[in-house]
């Protein structure tokens, strides 16, 4: 992994089920994440994904790619265009720095309205597979 490397994109279908179960699993019962009428009253055309679910998906994108052993150190995200039911979000990532075993990845999640999320993930990479070779050279 080196600066400039890109991660394979991950497209997440934004279903009503994902928005609602994500909100409830993160214990966020704010009505705009499950009640379309409440969402409209708040000026939104429909319910929209809560930030905890977005945060979880950004984390999942990184750990899916790096596999077990990768440890998230920091996730910093900013929301833009909302994730509404029926949309899809394409997550992409670019490695911006690598220091020792710690990498920083710039992540963007884009939907049909624009950028839903932009953020930076700091992750410690898994140790090279050396369990069977204790004297593996660095």
């Amino acid at each position, binding site marked *: 992994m080196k600066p400039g490397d890109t991660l394979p994109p991950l497209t997440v279908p934004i279903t009503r089920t994902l928005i609602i179960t994500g909100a409830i699993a993160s214990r966020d019962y704010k009505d705009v994440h499950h009640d379309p009428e409440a969402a409209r009253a708040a*000026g939104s055309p429909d319910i929209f994904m809560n930030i905890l679910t977005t*945060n979880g998906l950004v984390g*999942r994108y990184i*750990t*899916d790619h790096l596999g*077990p052993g990768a440890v*998230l150190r920091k*996730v910093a995200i900013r929301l833009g265009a909302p994730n509404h039911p029926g949309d899809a979000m394409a997550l992409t990532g670019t490695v911006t720095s690598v220091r020792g075993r710690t990498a920083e990845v710039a992540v963007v999640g884009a939907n049909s309205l624009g950028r839903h999320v932009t953020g930076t993930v700091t992750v410690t990479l898994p140790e090279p597979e050396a369990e069977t070779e204790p004297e593996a050279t660095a």
Partner: protein
Amino acid sequence: MSDLYRRLRAFEGRPATVSGEGREPVNVSMIRHWCEALGDTGPAYTGKDPVAPATMLQAWTMGGLSGSRSRSPAVDELFALLDDAGYTAVVATDCEQEYLQALRPGQTITFDSVIEAVSPRKTTRLGAGHFVTTRMEIRADGEPAGTHRFRVLKYAPRKTAKTANADNADNADNAAKAQAAERPRPVINRDNAGFWEGVAAHRLLFQRCDACGTPRFPWLPGCGSCGSPEWTAVEASGAGTVYSYVVMHHPPFPAFDPPYAVALVELAEGIRMISNITGVAADRVRVGMPVTLEFLRVAPDQELPVFRPAPMEVETS
């Protein structure tokens, strides 16, 4: 600064949560629900010694349907203030988390948070509102587990007329304080700093192009006639005439006392500037009226160039 914003800012630094406790310890059920909802099949989250997804950090601190038991009165007061001003809706905009340890089932979660910042009123696509940032320190079994900085926008939904109410509330506040209100401050930058230095020294300075000699005002980095960036500051004599004017009656602005005359004054040197006419009733101002420069103190540390009718020259034969 609006009176509302002054009151909002007073909340910065106050506690948002004091000695918060997670509703239950870290547990496999919530981890499973989270992973199922998000489609996260990471092997670390299941099996004999599972850990929680790091990004669940905030979830362990959420009050749930029954609400928070440890939210400080400060947050409720701050949000009530925003609600009353019409900023009734809320949306999360930023989340910054740092993870210091992997959380495991059985760990007890405790946390404290502080109101870090309240922004000035911002206009967003959703509507106008204020950003509120909180910073939370989270512990697991008493050991630091992570930090969680969270920013929400408390806003007035565009589809309601609440913003107008908020503005009216502000205006009512302002009317009551009009006597004490300060005039708007000039925006001073590198292009016009020389002009304001002149004002401070009771000199009215304009620019004259070094290349073509054209005088110009207000101050600009280049000549409008020939484009040259070279110029010299020149002091105006202060003599001029009213080229055009309006009399402001309505709407009233804080720190201004209508009716007052706003004039375009043509200086003897050939440039024109917007200013006030003082020393004469607003309805007595006339186009062509000879005026002369003076400096008016509008705040303890701020003077402005204004113009008053010039004394009639006595004819001598």
